[in-house]
């Protein structure tokens, strides 16, 4: 009885797995560009830096539905970018889980970049210079000194991005639609239930599920961060 009450329905499992898949890919595809942009903003000075900085914050500033709509306009099959993607690579993003991942990734991008940038800026340039004098070129310095020392920010950024992608709703439903098994993630399923009078109990279940998943991923990241910190701990904590 209790077991049945707790056991997840197929639809629930589907939504969970889909959510994880979509949030995971979202974070996956933005990780490298996110770190690269963060590094650019933290360590380089160039023309249009303020513009780039502003642009990448747009998803944060606009209501998600608007972002979803803009995505539909640009990446939809009739959009300028979408057309090119479709004709060039046969890739169609709207109404697919890949599209949902794109929507989640776009919404999560500024959070990732901000956190990573903050950590990169806190890395002591003296250590990078020291690595240089030991013969390490830019890339080696980046991968052996800068990024390892920015691990706290990488972790924070990743977990924020993951959480954001996991909870993404507005842009997803607008851009990727609410298709069961394809783009109906936990928040969309939750929305669908909330829209329905009398389905509060089911909605609450999903709500708890979301919370549990988020808590688990948070705790994992905390644990990793703690380990990373402990390694570097100096004597004055």
């Amino acid at each position: 009885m209790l077991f049945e009450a707790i056991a997840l329905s197929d639809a629930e499992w589907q939504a969970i797995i889909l959510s994880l898949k979509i949030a995971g890919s979202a974070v996956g595809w933005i990780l490298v560009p996110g770190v690269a942009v963060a590094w650019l903003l933290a360590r380089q000075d160039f023309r249009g830096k303020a513009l780039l900085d502003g642009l990448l914050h747009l998803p944060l500033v606009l209501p998600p539905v608007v972002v979803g709509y803009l995505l539909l306009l640009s990446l939809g099959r009739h959009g300028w970018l979408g057309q090119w993607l479709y004709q060039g690579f046969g890739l169609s993003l709207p109404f697919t889980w890949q599209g949902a991942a794109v929507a989640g990734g776009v919404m999560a991008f500024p959070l990732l970049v901000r956190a990573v940038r903050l950590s990169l800026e806190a890395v002591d340039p003296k250590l990078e210079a020291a690595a240089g004098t030991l013969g390490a070129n830019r890339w080696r310095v980046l991968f052996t000194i800068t990024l390892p020392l920015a691990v706290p920010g990488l972790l924070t950024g990743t977990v924020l991005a993951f959480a954001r992608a996991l909870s993404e709703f507005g842009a997803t439903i607008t851009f990727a639609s609410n298709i069961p098994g394809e783009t109906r993630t936990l928040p969309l399923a939750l929305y669908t239930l909330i829209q329905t009078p009398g389905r509060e109990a089911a909605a609450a279940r999903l709500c708890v599920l979301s919370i549990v998943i988020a808590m688990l991923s948070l705790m994992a990241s905390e644990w990793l961060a703690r380990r990373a910190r402990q390694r570097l701990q100096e004597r004055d904590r």
Partner: protein
Amino acid sequence: DRADPVRIYAAASMTDAMNAAIQAYESDHDVDIVPVYASSSTLARQIASGAPADIYLSANEQWMDWLAAQDLPVGERVDLLRNRLVLIAPTASDIAGFTPGDGTTIASRLGDGQRLSVGETSHVPAGIYAKQALQSIGEWNALQSRLASGDNVRAAMALVERNETPLGIVYQTDAEASDRVKRVGVFPDDSHQPITYPLAVVDPTPSDDTEAFRRWLAGDDALAIFSRYGFTPVESD
């Protein structure tokens, strides 16, 4: 291996009723029906951007009109269902029943600083109808500034359920599904445009399954199911 599923894009307020109808249909047809729920506007825009929809069921005529104007091959249009606009109060409320426009004003039932919850009157269908109804019973001017508008009917009803507002205007279907609100009054049918749910096939080359399902939806079996959820059939007048 089964044929392609039939995708029906339906207004989110139809979720429960449509799920029940689909379940019934699938039980004696060898076909996979995939419902996609979102607000009518979102669905319309998605269909316009090439979403893989076969059937569109809108919660109002505006978006069906808009879609038809988009240079898309929208098939024959059927007004599938009707709904009614009702005035609700929390179950425990001591507001006595009355017919809006029939002597007692809604405003007089609202306490000082209390609000009337409705769907957003500019774009949420239930809100648009509510505005029309209030105008026609001559209360719009008095109540315009005392509305609490949600971005869908469900949100409007939640405010009443939570007793944040003593009264709200929602669909009959919503009021019936919730046991935390009671119906205080029904707006006269002529106080607003008829609330119809138009249905159309939006696939330029509809499959046989699609046509069959559309026909079934317009049939008596489906109507019986929808009636259980408080919808009324469209009188053939």
